[in-house]
């Protein structure tokens, strides 16, 4: 390598790649540092770099790209269960899927579940974060306790709540019975739905809380003092000064909560209701698993995967936007 070649070059001189550049703009991955995220002082040993990249690229090829491609292609075929023959059927799987009342119910419930869990989690976490920001004594202790559920797997959260509200032995179910309330998540759909929502929120509050507490700490003291001099009381200061400043974090958390409720609550549903009673809590990600692995309806399951993929991609785009906004506001 000639020495001149190895000295400073900005990574900007790369030949035009309009496609990638377009996504880059959309996702705002690079900010202002350098168009392609290459350090000014860099090395130029292509084979060495290839060796560094090889493990990541190979794993992605085998466990990401090939499976994703297969999921896409499976969605457009019908597999004959006896001969293993593969028949191209176009959009038939999707037509059947959207025509199925069960699927539409599952999609509608997933929507409600996701909205309730995301918004509920955020509001509760906001209240806790505000209170933590306000108190001085015992702050560390409260923080340690409230972020504890992060250690707990969604499925264990499900097990804990399934026990608490178990109609036969659960202490809280007994309390409800003693108060004269009917409660049986194994039979009453509404009860089962409430139960998985509670378990899902309980598990996710800590995540929102950590981010909110950290960002409230970052609100400039000078602004708060100025508001105090203007006679604003703490609650008013929170709504007029702190909350607008941490809004980017709130937006980010909203996106993360949606992703959590859509995809990561599998364990909760599996532990608490197994999608029942009678499909009442069959959220989309659980239905993919059930139709694919329990009912072995591969075509339909693949079509469902594709629908979820589209949802996931749109949320990731939103997530990047959220991250970018969060960074820009410097909170």
């Amino acid at each position: 390598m000639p020495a001149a070649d190895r000295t400073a070059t900005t990574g900007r001189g790369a030949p035009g790649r309009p496609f990638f550049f377009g996504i880059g703009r959309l996702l705002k991955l690079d900010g202002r540092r350098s168009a392609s995220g290459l350090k000014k002082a860099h090395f130029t040993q292509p084979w060495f770099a290839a060796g560094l990249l090889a493990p990541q690229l190979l794993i992605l090829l085998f466990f990401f790209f090939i499976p994703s491609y297969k999921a896409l292609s499976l969605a457009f075929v019908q597999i004959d269960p006896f001969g293993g023959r593969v028949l191209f059927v176009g959009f038939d799987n999707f037509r059947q899927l959207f025509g199925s009342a069960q699927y539409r119910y599952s999609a509608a419930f997933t929507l409600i579940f996701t909205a309730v869990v995301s918004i509920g989690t955020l509001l509760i976490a906001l209240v806790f974060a505000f209170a933590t920001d306000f108190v001085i004594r015992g702050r560390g202790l409260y923080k340690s306790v409230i972020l504890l559920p992060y250690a707990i797997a969604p499925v264990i959260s499900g097990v804990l709540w399934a026990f608490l509200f178990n109609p036969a032995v659960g202490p809280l179910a007994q309390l409800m019975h003693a108060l004269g309330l009917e409660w049986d998540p194994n039979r009453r759909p509404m009860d089962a739905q409430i139960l998985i929502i509670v378990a899902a929120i309980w598990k996710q509050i800590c995540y929102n809380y950590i981010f909110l507490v950290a960002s409230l700490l970052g609100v400039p003291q000078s602004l708060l003092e100025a508001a105090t001099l203007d006679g604003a009381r703490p609650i008013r200061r929170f709504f007029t000064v702190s909350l607008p400043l941490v809004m980017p974090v709130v937006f980010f958390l909203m996106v993360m909560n949606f992703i959590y409720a859509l995809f990561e609550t599998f364990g909760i549903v599996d532990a608490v209701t197994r999608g029942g009673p009678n499909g009442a809590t069959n959220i989309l990600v659980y239905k993919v698993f059930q139709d694919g692995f329990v009912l072995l309806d591969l075509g339909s399951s693949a079509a469902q995967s594709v629908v979820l993929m589209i949802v996931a991609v749109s949320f990731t785009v939103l997530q990047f936007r959220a991250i970018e906004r969060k960074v820009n506001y410097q909170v």
Partner: protein
Amino acid sequence: MNQDRTLNIVCHAILVVGAVLVCLPLYFAFVAGSLTIVEVQQTPFPLLPGGHFFENLAESWSRGNFGRLFVNSIIITGGIVIGKLVMSLLAAYAITYFRFPFRMTAFWLIFVSLMLPVEVRIIPTYEAVADAAGPLRWLAGVTGLSGLVETLTGYRLETALQWNMVNTYRGLILPLIASASATFLFRQFFLTVPEELCEAARLDGAGPVKFFFDILLPLSKVNIAALAIILFIYGWNQYLWPLLFTTDKDMATAVLGLKQLVPVSDAEPAWNLAMAATFVVLLPPAIIIIGLQGLFTRGLVDSGK
């Protein structure tokens, strides 16, 4: 200031309620875990713990085969943490510190994987693990390599290229590290490392290996530790993948084993054993979160950037 004092009390009250909400399920789980099977079924449910916690712990430990499952969980979690850290550090180093053809292609190939969480491609990933050599067989067939080898040596390449990873540690680890989240994080961090460091290192004649180990790695220590904590919790708490990829009970993880202990409707309601086991299973991540709270919070907030 009187109003502020009221608000202070209200805030403490809110936080106490929050703490109680967090602890209530754990407390009742502890109570249930310390009762006998007869006691756990009584109405009303006892409010104070009984004296059988360690008995139940021992019983559930042996009944759930947790000795073996803990070893599995530790190996799998360790594999995920180390595998993902090493892989992402190297890949992030390559795309931020090297200029080479197709750099941006590699960049986008890696980061596009952030788009699809594992949960949405369950079935094909299962196939990929059950038949990891499938793509290689296909490649050998398409390129005519298998025919060539067969005519030359009489050896069928198709039979050699069989690689089923169901019920193996590899099968549990590899699909879970096939995402770019950590790579993205390290890339963002490397971009904030001062340019002068690499320039100076190069002036002193340091090559890429020396620069990486002597300068970049020590600088990233805190980030690596913080991310390792997040990855540890992520790995330990995996449920869906182990559920699919282990048909052999001896290859299950601790979280899966706990799920097996939970009574279903017709079985003997041994909630006392299940709840005692819950504490064993959530102990490792809980210790880490409580013991390394500062690092953990930092890792979490960083990984959201």
